[in-house]
């Protein structure tokens, strides 16, 4: 059981961004992807979620054996158990967080079954409290006028409510101060379980002190070029990416 990405290639327009990417996150583990700006990390997240701007030109992604690309629509993939916390979450004017998450949960129920409103709010408030999100936010429009950190917390709130099988977190640490980072990390750690896998994309090693990964992957120019344990993240932090690129050239 795993989230398995095989030989994945994807374009935006006629520009290739992902160039045969391989990665497997066994269920129950947390993997991290680190890489320089522009290496294609967000592209990977959005391609998995089914963003219409990207064209998959080769390879596959499977969730516990289920072929993601056989599901055309992003909502099908989400209901199949994939969650992507976006680097730049969208603002949705006039749609409250409460109604948004409610619609997302309702969409997971069988036809004709109604979400219990009282239970829903109890559950929502509990998760908000643990992420230290003011309960007043339930009636705020999704991400509208939120600070960077509030947006990221709202992504984690959605993840906590939707209970995915595999979660991809794209730079969920950016824009967070140290307290918020701890709160968000606690939220993620509380969800770590043998029944769930995480792929944590980050720019900084800092996050990985809080969410300690089982495996760290390095992404360069649309490929995973190196994998290791959490010490790899420390080495990248201390020495930058140049040595990685040299090593690849040497072995190429």
């Amino acid at each position, binding site marked *: 059981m795993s989230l398995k990405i095989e030989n994945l290639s994807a374009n935006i327009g006629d520009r290739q961004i992902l160039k045969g990417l391989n990665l497997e996150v066994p269920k129950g583990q947390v993997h991290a992807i680190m890489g320089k700006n522009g290496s294609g990390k967000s592209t990977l997240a959005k391609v998995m979620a089914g963003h219409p701007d990207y064209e998959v030109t080769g390879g596959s992604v499977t969730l516990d054996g289920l072929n993601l690309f056989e599901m055309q629509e992003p909502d099908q993939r989400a209901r199949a158990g994939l969650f992507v916390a976006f680097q730049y979450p969208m603002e949705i004017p*006039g749609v409250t967080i409460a109604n948004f998450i409610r619609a*997302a949960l309702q*969409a997971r129920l069988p036809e004709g079954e109604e979400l219990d409103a009282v239970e829903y709010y109890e559950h929502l408030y509990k998760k908000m409290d643990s992420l230290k999100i003011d309960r007043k936010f339930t009636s705020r429009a999704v991400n509208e006028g939120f600070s960077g950190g509030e947006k990221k917390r709202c992504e984690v709130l959605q993840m906590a409510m939707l209970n995915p099988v595999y979660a991809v977190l794209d730079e969920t640490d950016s824009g967070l101060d140290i307290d918020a980072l701890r709160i968000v990390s606690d939220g993620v750690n509380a969800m770590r379980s043998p029944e769930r896998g995480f792929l944590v994309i980050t720019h900084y090693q800092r996050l990985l002190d809080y969410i300690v990964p089982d495996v760290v992957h390095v992404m360069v120019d649309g490929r995973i070029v190196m994998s290791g344990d959490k010490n790899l993240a420390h080495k990248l932090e201390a020495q930058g990416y140049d040595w990685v690129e040299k090593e690849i050239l040497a072995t190429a």
Partner: protein
Amino acid sequence: MTTLMEKPAAAPSAWPAWFQAEQSAALAEYEKLPVPVRKDESWRFANLKALDLSAFVDANPVASEGRLINASTGLKETAAKLILGNNALLHREAGLLPKGVILETLESAAANHTELFKKYFMAQPVELGSRKYAALHKARVAAGAFLYVPANTSVELPIELFQWVEGANASVFPHTLIVCGENSRVTVVDYFKSADQLPAFACGVNDLHLARGAKLTYISVQDWSRETTAFHLNSTIVDREATATALIANFGGAFIRGESLSRLVGEGSRSEMYSINPVEGTREIDQRTLQDHVAPNATSDLLYLNALDDKSRTIFAGLIKVQPGAKGTDAYQKVKNLILSDDADPNSMPGLEILNDEVRCSHGATNGPISADELFYMEARGIPADKARRLIVNGFFNSLLTHIENDPLRLHLEGLLAARLAIG
């Protein structure tokens, strides 16, 4: 059956004789005034076919009075309720009105409060194109709603008015006249409803008068059948430091012509003009507005939101007019069209006429589809595209409802909107 032009012989008028004489004159004026043509400035882009009223007949007294009264439900708590159907009073509840507040039919106001009636009834000239239809309205108006709130009186809970039409091709002439005394406060929700999904004709007038320091929130929930032709001619007169908030929600109708004039006659007055218009099928909403700044340091804020699906049409023509004496004016006018279909036809004509330079004015119109990124974001949470689109449209309108300060009222309107857009 009698046509619109003839007075039904059987129904004796409840109006005083002097008003009946005015009605005869109004009928003559209606007949004399020409039917508008496209080259009339205020009928540009208009669908003139809708002006053929020959199919419509005089309304009979309502047959299903009990059903309509039972269906006249809105807010949980109200101060008073007036229910009218086919140009007659069906029901009145006024238990929680403070002393001195008058809520009754216009007919009885004409008899019992003649001075007030004469001072305020259709006191404003009709400037936005429908003089002919205002004359028809005056000639045929019956019953109607009259609300007077005396000075320094606050009506805490909202007042609800229900104006029904029943029967095929029936014609109704709803009228709401609200007079707010100095420093008074009141909220009114005015529902326009059809007893059945049949063609009908409504020709309504509503006039809001705010004396110094008054605060009025007026909500029109227009929910006529999808086969109704309707005119709604509105005027709002705002005196010193008074604030009028008027929201017009057009949920129904096949063809709606709305004319809304706000005249800021007192220094420091404020008029908020909002409208939400979900349109689909071949429905049309034609709205003409005027923000007339007469007094200095007044504010007017107009925001009209249209969401157009299928082959629907909207027309918005608005004018901000700043009179020479109106220095320090703040005037805003914005129409936003959310385009849901390639066949939809939005027409926007915002306009300014500024005769004083010490002003802040802005006006504009935008057209745009649902954002693909917003849609993707919602789908990425598992919400199917169709539901996501409806939520986004709902959100588009909801962001306007945040201007309504009264929480139970706003929640109620959010509920009506969600029901209208079939958000489960």
